[in-house]
């Protein structure tokens, strides 16, 4: 009796599993088309405006159409500034893989409490301060750059994604964008 019961149990279990055989429904001959990450930043544009109005506004551009792909960036400008000047700078982040370029700066602004732009100056006589806010902390889409003596160095700009962990510093979170621009003050 016990044996019969066990036998039935086993046969039942067998039947159950054979009907749940797992299958791959994809077509091996048709791989998925490469689709870019919707949030991929392909273009970083810094728009400089001299506060005195004496200099013309200008832009400094980084462009890498394949995002994190292996091809070299097609454009990586050097930042050239006048000494003893003050600039208001806006940073524009674009996804240019679409026909209509996607303005990712708008998203960063909307989710200001999850993002922080970090500016690190090396060797150049330059001070950068953020001038915008998400209500509690700065964001960094708008900044003020003050130059003094001529010289050269670099400015590293990083976009940190800090959902739930923004504390005003550049430590927490993951880095979505990080570029080091050669900077010359003349």
């Amino acid at each position: 009796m016990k044996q019969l019961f066990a036998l039935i149990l086993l046969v039942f279990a067998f039947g159950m599993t054979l009907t749940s055989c797992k299958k791959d429904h994809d077509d091996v001959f048709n791989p998925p088309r490469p689709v870019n990450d919707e949030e991929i930043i392909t273009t970083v544009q810094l728009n400089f405006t001299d506060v005195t109005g004496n200099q013309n506004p200008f832009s400094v551009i980084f462009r890498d159409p394949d995002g994190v792909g292996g091809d070299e960036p097609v454009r990586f400008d050097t930042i050239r500034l006048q000494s003893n000047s003050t600039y208001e700078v806006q940073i524009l982040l674009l996804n240019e893989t679409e026909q209509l370029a996607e303005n990712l700066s708008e998203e960063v602004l909307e989710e200001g409490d999850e993002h922080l732009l970090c500016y690190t100056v090396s060797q150049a006589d330059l001070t950068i301060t953020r001038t915008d806010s998400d209500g509690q902390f700065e964001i960094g889409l708008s900044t003020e750059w003050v130059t003094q003596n001529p010289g050269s160095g670099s400015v590293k700009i990083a976009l940190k994604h800090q959902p739930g962990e923004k504390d005003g510093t550049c430590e927490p979170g993951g880095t979505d964008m990080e570029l080091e621009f050669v900077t010359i003050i003349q």
Partner: protein
Amino acid sequence: MRQIIFKSLVLTLSLLLVREVSGQDCNASLSGRIIDEHDQQPLSLANIFIPSLNRGTTSDTLGYYFLDKLCPGTYVVQVTHLGCEPITDTLSISGNTKKDFFPEHHVEELRLFSVEAELEAEISSAICQFPFEKMRPLNFQSIGKMVEDVKGVTALSTGAHISKPVINGLHSNRIVVMNNEIRQEGQQWGSEHGPEIDPFMADNITVIKGAAGVRYGPEAMGGVILIEPKPLPDSAGIGGRLNLAGDSNGRKGATGFMLEGKSGKIPALSMRVQGSVTKSGNTKAPDYYLKNTGNEELNFSLTAGYNTKKAGAEVYYSQFNSNVGIFAGAHIENLSDLQNAFNAGAPLDTADFTYEIEAPYQHIEHELTKVKSYLNTGKNSKLIFTFGRQYNLREEFDAHGAEEGREDHGHEEEEGEEEHPALEFELTTHTAELLLEHKWKKSLSGSVGVTGISQKNTYEGRFFIPNYKKQGLGVFLFEQYVFDKQKLTLEAGIRGDYIYQQVFMWKDEVIISPVHEFNGLSGSLGGLKRLGKYFDWRLSLSAAWRPPSLNELYSDGLHHGAAAYERGDAELTTEKLRGITSQLIFERKKLDVDVEVYHNYIKDFIYLQPESQPAVTVRGVFPAFRFSQTNAALTGLNASVGYEIKERLKFKSTATLLRARNLETNEYLVMMPSDRFRNTLTYEFKDKGRLGKPYVSVSVSSVFKQWRVPQNSDYVEPPDEYHLVGLNAGSSIRVGKQKMDVGIYVTNLFNTSYREYMSRLRYFTDEPGRNISFRLSIPFHSKSQPAK
């Protein structure tokens, strides 16, 4: 003349006297067979010795032994075989006495779950193996972790739940894992992809060290891990086992059950159902919890067999399902993040204990269907046909919930499922093998076989490796000859394989389908000789090969979690290994020594070569690597020494040393395990009351700093050396009529903080701290009604 008469008188008299004393003819004999207790295989080169007569013999290839011209009487007979517990029996011998012996294995070996490597890859002559059923308590960790204690074996790990076995420095596509005689296929090129096999199903794990290409085909370069379930029951009735396991680190709970039966009415039919469920939460390093490192698993298997003397068949179906949390602190986006994480010394993202698994995590399913049938075509030959179908699903869910635009290819989704994996692989593999085992005359035995494989890989989401179809064919032959008198076994084997692979991928707006063809020869030549009374010496030469894996050919992108840009090379050719191994085993009274030295030369060894220019991307600057080929040499020593200090107290020391070099750049190879030692002291108590074979064991593992690394291949220095103390205790306990096995294992007893070079998490976090494991194993059985 006088002398001759005198001598013959003395001779005749003495003969008469002897006959008087014995009272009968000394024409009795003792013969029989020596069979391995576990797998019922004949044991050759076993010693059968009668101390009082100082006479003995050894068993032949088929396990038979024969001692004749014995005087009838009662004698103590000793049967010994390397690796096995000696048998001492008192026998009454008269006429033609027949007695078979069934040697078991060294019980102390079992305690340490050190599943010892077999003496050779190809030879089917048995050496005592170490089945789990005999091992108490059983250590239900992942497969990779369970074989870590074997000398020569280390692990490449990503946290506590992902552990890939490394044999003599080689892993991933350079070793083969056999899951119940079916080659496990599951994206094993991935350094974060561990073997998808239920540890509760494994009754016997065998580690074959060294190239085993002849029997196991391409990729069996470093070695092979054979995972076998318990054979179906051979006596009528229903039985089973319940296993309970708990770990303090991760607050892990696991249960495994097994129910099997053999029909009394249909003696040929037997069945088994087996399953396990595991749940664990965040792992704890000595000073902090590792965020999102939980694990859950649900596995089961069904086996049914019909076995008669002439022929038989068996069907096996198994499922492995798991969700593994990927340590949150490891999902870094760029190099600055990695530097910050390493310099911080501890994960920046802190966590408490929880069982919840969130993104990033892996979801893995592995389904295996196996059909095997055999036919005894003659007295000494057997035809075996094995067929397998595997489906392997790997879904990777990324941290930012990155929902890449995904085309729906009709993939079945459960209702209400919100998350989409960032990357999904589906690998379907069919394998078939036809094998003829034969024995000719008394000493020659071998196998000839043909195997085939057909595989299909598809992916959805982010590109990492392309879609492909692959077919392969292999033909092999190996033979073994035993020279009884010379106590020598010789073996030779050869195999040819051909692989045809077609890849499907997008390039410049069209789908291209390049074809790759690979072929190679594997071979082996070896011998095993008994030297004198106490030494066994094995020498083997082998050749093996492997095709480049898909990621080596086609990867092109950021390797998440590694902050590196990796580029493949579609022009890569096969890797070819030529190796030599020499092993010497000494065993006498209280001392046993086993020293294995090997040298493997790998031509066209594929590795990640740092590129001169880093990759500049919008996410930052990354070190760039390209898959390239060089010539490499791996030389190593695996040794163990065991000494019985006094009765019941045994000391054992093992060493695993490796030197791996890139011969073209004259530098060391990256990601190779450092030298390590392990010292263990075990004490076995006498059976007492309800306790059977209780024991206690303490061990110290010493792992040295891996300073043998190439320049420019890493961002941070390899971690310092570390020493871990472990403590084991166990026993079988009788509660009423029920017998059960219990065990306690403590690893990292002193909660030492350490990092391991072969751990992918070493940039971000310490390895797990102390873990106290408890194991309980309860067998049960009931007798069926006697067949009417």
